[in-house]
């Protein structure tokens, strides 16, 4: 038994932290009220099992409900697990309340463990293992409160206070309270220092792990830096995993490109985005429309579904994106190089992008967009000179560069050791084969050498129609890079990689690709349902499923009248309940015979009594009496009871017997 008010305080604390103060206060009053009220219910073991089952069902129902309903359209809300854990004290409250108002004051262990229930069912004389759940419930309240993640000193202070309160009760009488207080202070300070240190350690570890993983993943969506495989040796192999699902706008024919980010500074082998700080984008009314540029957006839109690990990531967008619609995220930001990033959102987002006439996302060129690194400058200048680009209009320069790469280069995912100093120089002057990063980087640098501001863009090429899903799918191997050229006041995509690249990549696809595609689609459908993107409203109705469940259980619990109410004072004075068959007419015979001095001895069985009467030649018809007694016994003790006919028969036979006896008595009197 917990000390007074402690459990109530823990419950109120939990309510305070989780924002469920009202139910928590009610619960606390209910729990602490048990001390003031003498009223108790005599719950049996099976009643506790049922209450525990009820809690389990409510828990399962809540889990299903939260899992389907939580986070739908309310991105940034805590996950279903967290909410469920926050609700836990409320979900198991019936068990604790029943304990508080039970005569036993403890809960049978079978309520928690099926093994115990099974054991108790197997054994005729089960041992009575029971647990006082008050303290564990207090612990649960404190831990559930932690799930609210209120990061103020209140939580730690309250936990210290509640713990001290509980420990004060069990403290050893051997030690002085001063020592106790001092030791507690030491533990509290150590605990405080420990948790601050623990949090720091995790942060440091996370940073280290993030950097390590980033270094492992070749293609990342870091909008500030894009590592390329330029200069890497051996064959590039990209996975067949489906990353995006795309519905093109009406009239839009694949292949087309979805850009994630662009970069302006090349420092072999990586591209960097310099001067590309993110600024936040404010949603329109409704919260799901994000305008990237002012002005009315056209109706036609491209639909994209993309997974965002941990609810964060860069969105792939078509060129000249003006507005993103139906994007349910909390925070969105963009940078001057055209990258749009979700800072807080769900694990899967589906959105529609409306495309305008120009590219408002990308800032006009700066000095960075003209710089050619020294290592590649010679080779690039030589190519630019060979092509005779100087003096031609920018559009022509773009066309010439595109033609140059298309006609003189071929696509290869295999790279050998570079012969020259720079891998790019080797690509441009000698090998003339490589993968898209070579083409894109070389194009950007050649354009810059020819005086056209250019940037390096990464993203995906949309080209594969999925008959299974009836939409375009983009795989990891469709990741692509290309150049952006500033022509006539706008950024234009310039993809110089030979178009055969996609076929070459597809040729080495895994034989199990169709199988994994089905799995991927299933995961996608599940995720859509999970994040509430499917048919809305299903989750709303699921909660109603709980109502019949709860009602059914309540009926099972109370309907069988297994719970007897016992008021502790009144219990002793109550008369014993009338037993079955107490209204049997056989007792009339017994009374009559007792009046005649032939009564049953104390604890004498009826059959022995009748035998005795017969042996003593008492004036009774023993055989008739035996028949009546047999029926009476069945009425009295047969668990199945007797039928209506038999009941009538018992009454009739007793009446007949009494009448016969009365007649005989009259006859004797007459004689």
């Amino acid at each position, binding site marked *: 038994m917990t000390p007074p008010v402690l459990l109530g305080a823990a419950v109120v604390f939990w309510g305070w932290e989780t924002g469920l103060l009202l139910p928590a206060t009610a619960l606390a009053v209910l729990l602490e009220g048990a001390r003031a009220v003498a009223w108790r219910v005599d719950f049996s073991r099976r009643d506790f099992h049922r209450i525990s089952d009820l809690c389990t069902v409510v828990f399962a129902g809540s889990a299903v409900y939260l899992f389907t309903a939580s986070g739908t359209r309310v991105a940034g809300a805590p996950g279903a697990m*967290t909410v469920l*854990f926050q609700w836990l004290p409320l979900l198991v409250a019936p068990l604790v309340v029943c304990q508080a108002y039970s005569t036993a004051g403890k809960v049978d262990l079978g309520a928690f463990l099926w093994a115990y229930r099974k054991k108790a069912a197997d*054994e*005729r*004389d089960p041992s009575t293992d029971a647990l006082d759940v008050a*303290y*564990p419930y207090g*612990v649960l309240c*404190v*831990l559930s409160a*932690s*799930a*609210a*993640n*209120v*990061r103020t000193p209140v*939580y*730690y202070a309250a*936990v*210290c206070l509640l*713990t001290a309160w*509980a*420990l004060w009760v*069990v*403290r*050893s*009488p*051997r*030690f002085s309270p001063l*020592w*106790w207080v001092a*030791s*507690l202070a*030491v*533990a*509290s300070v*150590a*605990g*405080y220092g*420990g*948790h601050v240190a*623990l*949090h720091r350690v*995790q*942060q440091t570890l996370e940073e280290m792990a993030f950097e390590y993983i980033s270094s492992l993943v070749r293609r990342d969506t870091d909008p500030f830096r894009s590592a390329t495989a330029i200069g890497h040796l051996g064959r590039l192999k990209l996975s067949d995993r489906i990353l995006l699902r795309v519905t093109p706008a009406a009239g839009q024919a694949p292949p087309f490109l979805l850009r994630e980010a662009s970069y302006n500074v090349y420092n072999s082998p990586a591209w960097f985005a310099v001067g590309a700080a993110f600024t936040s984008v404010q949603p329109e009314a409704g919260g799901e429309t994000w305008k990237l540029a002012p002005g009315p957006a056209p109706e036609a839109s491209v639909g994209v579904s993309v997974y965002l690990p941990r609810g964060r990531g860069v969105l792939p967008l078509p060129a000249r994106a003006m507005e993103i619609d139906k994007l349910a995220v909390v925070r969105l930001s963009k940078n001057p190089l055209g990258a749009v990033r979700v800072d807080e959102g769900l694990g899967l987002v589906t959105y529609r992008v409306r495309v305008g006439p120009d590219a408002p996302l990308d800032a006009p060129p700066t000095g960075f967009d003209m710089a050619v690194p020294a290592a590649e400058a010679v080779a690039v200048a030589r190519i630019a000179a060979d092509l005779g680009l100087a003096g031609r209009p920018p559009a022509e320069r773009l066309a010439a560069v595109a033609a140059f790469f298309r006609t003189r280069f071929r696509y290869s995912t295999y790279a050998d050791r570079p012969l020259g100093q720079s891998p790019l120089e080797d690509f441009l002057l000698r090998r003339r084969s490589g993968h898209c990063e070579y083409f894109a980087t070389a194009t950007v640098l050649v354009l810059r050498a020819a005086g056209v501001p250019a940037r390096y863009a990464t993203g995906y090429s949309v080209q594969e129609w999925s008959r299974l899903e009836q939409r375009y799918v983009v795989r990891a191997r469709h990741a692509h890079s290309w150049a952006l050229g500033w022509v006539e006041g706008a950024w234009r995509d310039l993809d110089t990689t030979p178009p055969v690249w996609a076929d070459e990549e597809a040729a080495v696809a895994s034989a199990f690709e169709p199988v994994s595609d089905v799995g991927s689609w299933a995961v996608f459908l599940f995720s859509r349902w999970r994040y509430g993107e499917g048919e809305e409203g299903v989750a709303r109705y699921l909660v109603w499923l709980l109502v019949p469940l709860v009602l059914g259980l309540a009926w099972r619990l109370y309907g069988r009248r297994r719970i007897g109410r016992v008021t502790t004072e009144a219990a002793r004075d109550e008369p014993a309940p009338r037993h079955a068959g107490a209204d049997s007419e056989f007792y009339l015979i017994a009374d009559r015979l007792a009046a005649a001095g032939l009564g049953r001895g104390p604890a004498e069985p009826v059959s022995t009594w009748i035998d005795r009467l017969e042996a003593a030649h008492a004036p009774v018809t023993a055989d008739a009496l035996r028949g009546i007694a047999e029926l009476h016994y069945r009425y009295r003790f047969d668990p199945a009871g007797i039928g209506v006919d038999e009941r009538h028969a018992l009454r009739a036979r007793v009446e007949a017997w009494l009448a016969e006896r009365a007649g005989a008595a009259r006859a004797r009197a007459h004689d």
Partner: protein
Amino acid sequence: MKRVAYRLFRSTASFQYRLGRQLTPAGKLVLVALGAAGVIGFDTNRTVGYQAFTLLAALLVVAAAWSVVFRVRLDIQRVLPRFVTAGAPAAYRLVIRNGTVRPQRGLVLLEDLADPSPSFDEFLRAREPGEERRNWFDRTVGYPRWAWLIERRRGAGIAPRPLPPLPAGGAREVEVALLPLRRGRLAFTGVTIARPDLFGLVNALVTIPLPGALVVLPKRYAVPDLALPGVRKYQRGGVALAGAVGDSEEFVSLRDYRPGDPLRRVHWRSAARVGRPVVKEYQDEFFVRHALVLDTFVEHEESDVFEEAVSVAASIACSIQTKDSLLDLLFVGPETYCFTAGRGLGHTDHMLEVLAGVRPCRDKPFRALRDAVLERSASLSGAVAVLLAWDAPRRDFVRRLRALGIPTRAFVVGDGTTPAGGPGDQVQHLEVGRIGEGLARS
């Protein structure tokens, strides 16, 4: 594989035992809460559960630090009763003398019973009831069997006993409640004095060796009067241990000496008077003598059926009135035993003590018991047989006893799977778990 599992179970059980002693109930709750907080607060960004985790960890560390040093000198004497009964709560006393110059407060006494862990061979041989119905993993690894064995071999339940304050140099007597769980010898190895730390979480322990033992009698059921039929039979040698030492003391007459009469029977005064040897003649003893035959032939060492059979035998031994008759308890252990009670010979208590120590016999056939009983059949008025099966040898045994004119009541203890005999067999089947009910019907 089994050996690895056995070692693992053994070390885990020993760890659990030590942890269970080292931590108070509050300490256990804190440990569980620590584990839960560790899981919940694992990601320190997601919940603040890690704050509770570090606080609880700090509390346990401080509590453990307080428990490192604990010195106490106590002289303890355990006053045990001679025997107690399995399943019946009992109590015994401990006299504790504080040998230190400081008063001792807040101490808790923990009894150390002999380690119930089975040996590897016992673990291999044992068969848990219903083990064949368990899944493959449980059967192979054998944890349920281990748990069952430990539960069976646990001699008694003794709750930690908080000690009253012990004045410096003074002595106190405390009563300790004991719940014997199974018959046999209950061995104590020592006493552990636990001192909870100031938070009441971690115990500092001091163990004082204090061996002791008591006999736990078998559990007994209420048995209605068996009303054993039977006639009085001639008992060679008379009452004074009919068949062991001495002769009957009931003097009948004097008669002439016949060669072979023992010299101690010569009535010297009469011999002097008549001038030839005269001897005293004593009454031949006729009285009722029953045999209580206990079948000990089971396949496995630890068997519920066998334990219940011993309980049934003990119940019957107590219910048969031995004031005017003799009762022979016959069973086969390493050899054949016959223990007689009644008419001032042995007491029923002794018989129960014998039953407390009965072990199953696995190296002899049932024939050994049959022969032992039939050997004594001439002096028996009746027999009660408590059997563990109803197979051909046992059926034959009961049939032969009855054929010899010895009224025989047979009880067959089974676990519900034992094939029952036909109605003509006149045996009473008792099912484990419903023994009391079955006996009440007899």
